[in-house]
């Protein structure tokens, strides 16, 4: 069994009377695809926000790659290799695809700020950015303005921005949100291709995709992790079926 890359321990987040994250304990192992599932309002995105550093937990610790990152701001965590994508597409809409990715490369290539030399002349950085764009299937769209891309392509860029930061772990918040079947299929293929290159913590509602991709699945209900196991274990877990998968089956039947 491989080492634990991300260790979330006793995490608590309250919003007024609502406990959105209730003593959550999750371990993500190096190299695995770990899915996080649960009904709407279970606190999946809130958890991702805390792991990425967008919001601070009330209690608990987050250890990443041997470092306690609980107190670190979001941008410092990225430099440690902890990147994220957003459920609601958040790219630089007025910039080209290449500029989008090149910015993400810039933050993390270790060459720091520069105040005088022309940034566009940095061939190596733009080459690396073009490589990342190619990898997420946007190789033919480098010069296109991001805001004009099709929805699915913007979602691919969304993932590309996270990948360009040379991450060890990528937090993917519903990468298939709002996608049609073809686009979803392309995203599943993209995520499959990342296996081995980066560890993934994936929030997703598309159960078909989850069970195809995930090595292990954690189920979150009302802020609590009620089950964690392999796809098969989760599929047949009585509590998970009652709290979540059952709903889906009923919805599908209706």
């Amino acid at each position, binding site marked *: 069994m491989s080492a634990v890359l991300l260790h979330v321990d006793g995490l608590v987040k309250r919003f007024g009377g609502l406990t959105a994250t209730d003593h959550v304990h999750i371990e993500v192992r190096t190299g695995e695809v770990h899915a996080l599932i649960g009904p709407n309002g279970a606190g999946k995105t809130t958890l991702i926000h805390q792991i990425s550093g967008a919001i601070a937990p009330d209690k608990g610790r987050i250890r990443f790659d041997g470092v306690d990152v609980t107190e670190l701001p979001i941008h410092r965590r990225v430099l440690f290799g902890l990147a994220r994508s*957003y459920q609601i597409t958040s*790219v630089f809409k007025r910039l080209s695809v290449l500029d989008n990715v090149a910015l*993400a490369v810039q933050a993390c290539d270790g060459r720091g700020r520069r105040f005088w030399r*022309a940034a566009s002349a940095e061939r190596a950085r*733009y080459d690396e950015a073009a490589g990342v764009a190619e990898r997420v299937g946007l190789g033919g769209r480098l010069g296109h303005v991001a805001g004009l891309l099709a929805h699915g392509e913007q979602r691919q860029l969304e993932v590309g921005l996270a990948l360009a930061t040379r991450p060890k772990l990528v937090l993917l918040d519903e990468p298939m949100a709002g996608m049609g079947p073809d686009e979803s299929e392309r995203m599943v293929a993209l995520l499959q291709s990342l296996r081995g290159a980066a560890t993934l913590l994936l929030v997703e509602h598309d159960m078909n995709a989850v069970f195809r991709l995930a090595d292990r699945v954690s189920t979150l209900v009302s802020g609590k992790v009620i089950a964690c196991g392999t796809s098969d274990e989760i599929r047949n877990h009585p509590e998970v079926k009652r709290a979540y998968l059952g709903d889906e089956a009923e919805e599908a039947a209706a």
Partner: protein
Amino acid sequence: MTRIASGAHLVARPIEAERAAERVGGLLDHSLLSRASLPLLVLLAALPAVAGAFNETFYVGVASRILIFALAATSLNLILGFGGMVSFGHAAFVGIGAYAVGILMNAGVATAWIAWPVAMLASALFALLIGAVSLRTKGVYFIMITLAFAQMLYYLMVSLKAYGGEDGLSLSARSSLGLGLDLGSEATFYYVVLLLVMATIVVVQRLLNARFGHALQAIRENEARMAAIGFPVYRHKLIAFTVAGAMAGLAGALLANQSGFVSPALLQWSQSGMLMIMVILGGVGQLYGGVAGAVVFLLLEEVLAARTIHWQFGLGAALLAVVLLAPNGLMGLRRKRGAQ
């Protein structure tokens, strides 16, 4: 699904205009030269000679004043236009620079080589302190807090009787430059101002096209995402705010020299508002936006004020026309036409 599709449609429309920028560094890079810049430069260089030939040397002073405001507006554009920080207290940094020169002059330090760098440093220091607090807020709160700081400094200068209080300070002479140059001569002063404005624009352009400027502009585009791809957003904004403060301080030092007088009115909110209008008029986030805005604003003021005491009415109408017809400012208009 439908909701998402229609949302995408809504955001796509204003972006059409940016299609011209579909190349590496499109929106992020800014060109120093355009077809108009060389003839304009020749015109500016020849201005004192031409004015002298027509016996209208008065206009050399007017031109110096316009260039100084072009410098101040350019410094504001660096944070407002390129950094997305709507600072409503920029006149404070101009005022601090001006007071630094005035106070040093009264203390017997007349050399520009000391007074002007001190003015820039003082303004930069105040910008650093004010920015460090203000940049923790966003949106309308940022506008209000920068305004509040500027007004505090305004009232501070009003209450400092040692430096003239409300009446301000008169400068006994212009700063001395040495090198055989006499800043008392309008033409010499004009050329020094022109040189400094050009140097500032080069510095701003290099800054914008460098890694730092790319990051700054991307922060304007999407601040949350910049943090999420590893940029220390606050630090970038604070550096830009401080640099802009230093440049405004230089403008203030020159303004004190140009008018031979400093007063709290330099720091007042209406001055900050005027700089903001210049930037909006000329083009928010356009390299020459501050320059174009200062030229048009002050020339309009000059022309209209000579004809009617209600010149502000005309100025308001002009501003309204620009905002309605050219929402990207005058320089934005030029860019759009060039793209067609």
